[in-house]
């Protein structure tokens, strides 16, 4: 169905090729996953398949591409629309119409179908993705997962043979991501639709993939998922454990993993050592807040101590972000008080508060407006009327701590998601605050960027910052948090050590906790660090057969 032979592609102003001698063959009816760090060429590879590269990007291309028997370069994106459907990262940037049904019909209006055929198509497509109850809804009122399903439906309206998706779940919360992936698996299983998606959060998607394409710096390795998963740079915890323990074949689901883990004896996790109570930096005492008549926070209390990292978890709309916003004063508080280092700051203006409490909003792009990274950081200092004499030194030091000093003169919007986030962090941390609040900082980050963020947060803790982190990422929270608070409908429903909160909940538990239930272990790092040689129950005799890897690069 998809065939690439020695494809090399360079963007008009690119020094190195974005695709470097890529060859691969994907069979019809399969589901394949492309993975690799940001900027490795995943998006470029996908866009080659429907002609957007090079028709929409310019650049130089060599090699041969065949998709559903067509040549995308000769056909152009317009001609490929009938063969390849495409879905991109941000569902909200892909809508033309504002009503679900009309959005699905959009592609059909110029397709030459008669009106009755068009109606039939729309009905079928609504059914395929179970969107019938939503058909007359305004797209913007839908949840993230529903929006992405509408985008998929719109891409399928022309009945393509292949569906390509560029990180379709990276902007979604776990529940929404689950809905989208289940819908995709359904399309793949029931219709035999060939699906190719790129993703760097692999924990949920690997189980559906037949083929894995691992990319690095423009080169691609293709192979069956179970064989290639072990070679990933940032594998999901279950793969980490399985590779380290030599389980074979590699289990891609918890169910399969349990078959192995039950035969593995692990020492029970040590009881959470009680940390000496730290000096409280932020104290939220009985805070209540509303959006209109809707109460979003109900007597919520929280204390964040110096050098402590608190993770706030809970489903969408449970009030996590609102809590952060009330701490910095963006949300009006009706009852209760907020104290910083012992002083009540309820009446302090937002700008003044944020000098001491850094807040990283969900979308760091909303901050970036300056022509260079250095100007971006300088703008914050100027807002707070820091004398110009101190400016240069402060900025340089800040950029160095975040490891982006080499980007000081770059245009912030041209950077990768991880780098943009660091610029935003520099812009809020340059005032030397005593607390740091982060709203879903791992969204859209690849494995290495996430790892680097974790390392940076640990260094902030060491400097005594009180950190409050809103996240859906259980693994990330388990790795870093000293304390986990779960919110539901604006109330605190759980508050304790990660061990107490995350180990037993079916929704919030980590893969390792599911793999070794009751053991008390949460992360692969912990398990592998304390693993005793005796727990290696499997010997080398059922090692993986030699894998035939097609490596082009």
């Amino acid at each position: 169905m998809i065939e690439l032979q020695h494809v090399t592609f360079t963007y008009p102003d690119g020094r190195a090729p974005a695709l470097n001698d890529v060859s691969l063959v994907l069979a019809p009816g399969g589901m394949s996953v492309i993975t690799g760090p940001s900027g490795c060429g995943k998006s470029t590879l996908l866009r080659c398949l429907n002609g957007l590269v090079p028709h929409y990007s310019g650049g130089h291309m060599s090699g041969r591409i065949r998709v559903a028997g067509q040549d995308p370069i000769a056909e152009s994106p317009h001609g490929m629309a009938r063969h390849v459907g495409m879905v991109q990262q941000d569902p909200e940037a892909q809508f033309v119409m504002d009503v679900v049904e009309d959005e699905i019909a959009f592609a059909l209006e110029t397709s030459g179908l008669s009106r009755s055929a068009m109606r039939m198509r729309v009905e079928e497509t609504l059914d395929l993705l179970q969107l019938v109850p939503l058909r007359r809804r305004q797209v913007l009122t839908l949840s993230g997962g529903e929006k992405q399903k509408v985008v998929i439906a719109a891409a399928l309206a022309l009945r393509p043979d292949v569906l390509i998706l560029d990180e379709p779940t990276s902007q979604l919360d776990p529940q929404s991501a689950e809905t989208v992936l289940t819908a995709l698996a359904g399309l793949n299983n029931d219709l035999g639709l060939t699906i190719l998606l790129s993703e760097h959060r692999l924990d949920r998607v690997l189980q559906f993939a037949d083929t894995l394409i691992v990319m690095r710096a423009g080169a691609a390795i293709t192979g069956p998922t179970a064989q290639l998963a072990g070679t990933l740079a940032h594998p999901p915890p279950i793969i980490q454990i399985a590779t380290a323990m030599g389980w074979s074949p590699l289990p891609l689901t918890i169910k399969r993993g349990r078959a192995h883990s039950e035969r593995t004896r692990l020492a029970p996790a040590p009881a959470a050592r009680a940390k000496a109570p730290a000096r409280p930096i932020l104290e939220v005492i009985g805070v209540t807040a509303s959006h209109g008549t809707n109460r979003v926070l109900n007597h919520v209390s929280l204390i964040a101590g110096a050098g402590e990292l608190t993770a706030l978890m809970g489903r969408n709309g449970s009030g996590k972000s609102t809590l952060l916003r009330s701490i910095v004063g963006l949300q009006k508080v009706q009852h209760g008080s907020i104290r910083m280092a012992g002083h009540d700051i309820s009446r302090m203006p937002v700008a003044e508060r944020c000098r001491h409490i850094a807040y990283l909003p969900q979308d760091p792009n909303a901050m970036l407006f300056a022509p260079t990274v250095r100007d971006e950081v300088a703008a914050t200092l100027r807002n707070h009327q820091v004398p110009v004499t101190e400016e240069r030194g402060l900025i340089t030091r800040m950029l160095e701590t975040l490891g982006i000093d080499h980007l000081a003169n770059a245009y912030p919007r041209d950077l990768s998601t991880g780098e943009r986030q660091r610029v935003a962090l520099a812009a809020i941390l340059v005032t030397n605050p005593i607390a740091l609040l982060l709203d879903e900082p791992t969204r859209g980050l690849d494995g290495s960027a996430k790892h680097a963020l974790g390392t940076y947060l640990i260094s902030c803790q060491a400097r005594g910052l009180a950190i409050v982190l809103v996240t859906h990422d259980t693994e990330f929270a388990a790795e870093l948090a000293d304390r986990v608070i779960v919110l539901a409908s604006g109330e605190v429903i759980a508050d304790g050590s990660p061990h107490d909160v995350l180990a037993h909940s079916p929704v919030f538990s980590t893969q390792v906790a599911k793999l070794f239930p009751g053991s008390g272990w949460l992360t692969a790092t912990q398990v592998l660090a304390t693993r005793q040689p005796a727990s290696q129950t499997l010997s080398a005799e059922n090692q993986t057969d030699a894998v035939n890897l097609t490596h082009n690069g």
Partner: protein
Amino acid sequence: MFWPKYLSTTTYSVISIVGLFAFLLPFLQPQIQLTESGIGHTQDAPIFTITLVFLCLMAMLLDAQSNMLNAKTVALLGVLLSINTVIRFVEVAIPGPGGVTPVFFLIMVAGFVFGPRFGMLMGCLSLLTSAFVTGGVGPWLPFQMFTAGWMGLSAGLLGRAVRRQENKRLQLVALVVFAALWGFLYGAIMNVWFWPFADNPIQQSWRPGMSLGEVIDHYLLFYSLTSLTWDAFGAAGNGALMVAFGGAAIGVLDRAHKRFEFAIQS
């Protein structure tokens, strides 16, 4: 083919002439009346002007549509228009002092960076979309669209003339002056076209035997007494907005232009 090749040039020349005619019609009206005897016919003038302006709009839009619209320009225009509509929305809710309308800012900058046709579409459709969204569809809409279209178009021509200059500051100065001029021009054009609907001051002050020059003199006096202060606010506002945001906006649009340049050829 010979005919389509020169069609754009023909279109814009004919539209200029017809547009000028429609603009001058209120001044010509007294002369026309002189040859008539009845009273009722003056009432046809607005309908006549609307029809003409409507046709001119159609021809301009058709020309732009078939010459530059594709998925890229459609998406680009769409999102820029949505920003302009939001700006208009805010403006309707909280009117600024005098005739200051930030809506024109983006029209002029877009025309300046992306060329005359893009600017023309940006102008026409900005007014159209915001009329839809704010519920402001009325008989004045074709005039507003036409005038704003010309604004964007001329900004594009200015861009062509000035953008070869390396000096960014000079470019901006040209645009600021241009923006201020349009502040006055827009007011003047809309006045002439809108008055026939209300109560044409030109006809009212017209007396038999008055020459065209006298009518225009009269109008200028009238304009300077009534609309000038209002428009002066508008012009100053346009200029000030351009000074404050012009440089930044041109920078941002230039970057986008680079990424879109495979599509835009106007």
